[in-house]
């Protein structure tokens, strides 16, 4: 069983307010301040909120971490605090501020339409009438579920169920969203839809989203900040593009050719990853990219050329093949720290 990592995660709502004594110029003011002081509130940190994604190979502890953060699992040691609460105490106040969406286990009542689950959650979370109506309207619009939410859950398709599941999870306007593999099993268009929804919801409400996913596209699309954990240990905390650049500061060039290319010739341009009569894939460092592309386009056999980042899976594999204790610093050869 994976050990829960030792974390302290700051989430939304962290504010620090100082009461500062207001000083005014002048004798009169100085005299006045002897009798009555004026205070001004200074907000040092306000409403810090963000999206972070958990990346890691299977067994790294992503789902475990989410379960610890939501209070379902007790850490063996260490401190966890979410929104100022200790999750494992499962205080009602804490539970009202979070939501956990698990791809595999749903909260929608199976034999009843989703509207009944919405109604149930409304009562359980104590949502007022107007708030409920407003939230419902917004979610229906964002998720396009008005037509399907009155059908029994068991009659809905997987994608429709996921959308209603998200609606049920967000009715109480939680500040922190834990999403465990939310796009698993969905087809490509549905994945895009869910990703888009989460992005827009986050924009509108500024909630903190903590996401685990196997799909790199989920993380790349949604998470400006990424935390990498491997064997339950923190390996990286920063933004994704910088990570990619530092781990694999290469670009890939994919070619389609009308006639086979000579391997030796290609190797002068860059590392040859794949080569067969009709296509080739080369790996080229960032700074040598322009030159390489120029060379390749000049060759008559090249009919099509695309430049890509290396697949995230490969980046991850490379990252996790490093020694366990090495932290990864962001920043490629020319980039500054993100």
């Amino acid at each position, binding site marked *: 069983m994976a050990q829960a990592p030792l974390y302290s995660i700051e989430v939304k709502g962290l504010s620090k307010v100082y009461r500062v004594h207001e000083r005014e110029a002048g004798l009169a003011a100085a005299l006045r301040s002897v009798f009555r002081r004026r205070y001004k509130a200074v907000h040092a940190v306000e409403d810090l909120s963000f999206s972070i994604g958990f990346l890691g190979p299977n067994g790294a502890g992503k789902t475990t971490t989410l*379960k610890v953060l*939501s209070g379902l699992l007790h850490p063996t040691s260490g401190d966890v605090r979410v929104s100022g609460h200790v999750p494992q105490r499962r205080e009602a106040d804490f539970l009202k501020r979070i939501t*956990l969406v698990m791809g595999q*286990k749903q909260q929608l009542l199976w034999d009843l339409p989703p509207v009944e689950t919405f109604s*149930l959650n409304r*009562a359980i979370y*104590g949502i007022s009438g107007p708030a409920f109506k407003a939230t419902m309207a917004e979610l229906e619009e964002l998720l396009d579920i008005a037509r399907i939410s009155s059908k*029994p859950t068991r009659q809905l398709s997987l994608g429709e169920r996921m959308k209603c599941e998200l609606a049920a999870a967000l009715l109480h306007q939680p500040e922190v969203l834990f999403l465990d593999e939310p796009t698993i099993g969905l087809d490509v268009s549905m994945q895009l839809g869910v990703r888009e929804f989460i992005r827009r919801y986050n924009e509108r409400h500024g909630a903190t989203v903590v996401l685990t996913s196997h799909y790199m596209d989920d993380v790349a699309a949604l998470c400006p900040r990424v935390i990498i954990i491997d064997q339950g240990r923190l390996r990286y905390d920063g933004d994704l593009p910088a990570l990619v650049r530092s781990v694999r500061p290469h670009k890939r060039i994919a070619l389609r050719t009308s006639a086979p290319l000579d391997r030796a010739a290609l190797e002068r341009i860059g590392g040859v990853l794949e080569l067969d009569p009709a296509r080739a894939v080369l790996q080229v460092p960032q700074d040598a990219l322009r030159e390489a592309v120029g060379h390749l386009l000049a060759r008559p056999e090249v009919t099509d050329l695309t430049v890509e980042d290396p697949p995230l899976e490969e980046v991850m594999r490379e990252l996790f093949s490093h020694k366990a204790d090495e932290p990864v610093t962001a920043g490629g050869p020319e980039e500054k720290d993100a």
Partner: protein
Amino acid sequence: MSAFSRALQAYPTLLRVGFAGALAYRAELLIWMLTTTMPLVSLALWTAVAESAPIGRFGAAEFTAYFMAALIVRQLTGSWLVWEMNMDIRSGSLSQRLLKPIHPLFVYSAENLAAIPLRALLCVPIAALALAAAGGERFQAAPAPLAIFAAALLGAWLLNFFTMALIGSLAFVMESSTAVFQLYLAGFMIFAGYLVPIELFPPALREIAAVLPFRYTLAFPVEVLIGLSGPRAALRDLAVQWAYAAATAATALWAWRAGVRRFAAFGG
């Protein structure tokens, strides 16, 4: 007490949705209902036995009254919580219940109560008619016993529910507590007077039955309903019943909390 009052506020919705759920899963409801109509079979049995000669105070009419009352009480106080808890714990869907800011036992209780009207709807009117017809002389419609009956019924439901919660919580530590439940049911069948009125037991067993809590989940309300106990004895028994219910509730809540901690320590 604010957690409790919040749960109370949510209760009507919980009941309503529970009712809708019971309606939706009609097949399952039907089967639960069928299991609690065993008193009808018992009745057929005992009226056949009593044909040659009554047993103790019980002739055909008395048996009819008893088993019809047993049917009514069983329908109104029965709970299948052990099965549900075992399933939820094994499948892990208990996690969803734990994420809500309301105690899962509240929700379970609402689901149980919500199903009662449907279950009762089919059996209880018929049983009540049969009861009135057969046990005319015994049935006291005087207000005092009826109020005691209501209290006894509620006490029986509470005792039953929390016993189920306790046994269900064993599923946190065992692979499945349904085996323990079978054991409990065996005890219940006899010592709650479900299969045969306790009054007819041989003396030694009668003593045992009087002490065990099983009696208070069925036999006691039945005896009150058909007038087998006088009001004073009934009041004393009522106190014992509610004492048992309170003790069981406390134990069940403790077992639940301990179980959830274990559930969370080993992977929800």
